[in-house]
């Protein structure tokens, strides 16, 4: 059932996550079924109230908010990673589903790719 793109890199300080998001948006723009999974340090993408003006960057959260517009099927976050990084549902941007990133989840997708 389509492609899963996994973002396990933090939101700022590296471009890997943004590149993975661009890939997901491109796939969706060409009507390919694609979902996003945030895990490990990647869950830092999902915290509310990011204000990166001081480091001269744009908010990745705003970027990610465009996911439904592009037709991304699901935006998921690994439950255990969220717990480890102190991120509860109240701290999280809207539209994110908590899941367990395990073999069962990955088996639902034909292809899975990680952010570099």
């Amino acid at each position, binding site marked *: 059932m389509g492609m899963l793109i996994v973002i396990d890199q933090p939101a*700022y*300080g590296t471009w890997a996550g943004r590149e993975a998001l661009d890939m997901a948006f491109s796939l969706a723009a060409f009507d390919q079924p694609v979902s996003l999974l945030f895990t*490990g*340090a990647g869950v830092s993408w999902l915290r509310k109230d*990011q204000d990166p003006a*001081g*480091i001269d960057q744009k908010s990745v959260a705003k970027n990610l908010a465009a996911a439904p517009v592009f037709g991304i099927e699901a935006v998921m976050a690994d439950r255990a990673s969220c717990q480890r990084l*102190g991120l509860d549902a109240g701290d999280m941007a809207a539209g994110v589903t908590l899941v367990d990133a395990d073999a069962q989840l990955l088996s639902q997708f034909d292809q899975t790719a990680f952010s570099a």
Partner: protein
Amino acid sequence: MNVIHTLHILNKTPEHPRFRECLGMLGPDDALALTENGVLALAGGQPFGLERVYALRTDLSARGLSATGATVQPIDYPDLVELTLEAKRVISW
């Protein structure tokens, strides 16, 4: 305030191997300055066992974090420069 023996400037995410390596090297008279993705350590809420822990304010707000614990002091770049001058040694991880 007594002199900082070593100032550790840590910019790696907690998942980076060098993050753990840095924590293992902290001495009682050392100070820790979290910058860039190093500030993500504050989201987990684990104590560092150090009296002086600082975090760059711009990197905190970029990631939607705040230095809520009284043990962590938010700083700006000029403060970081002061700390490097105050410390006998500096390690940039």
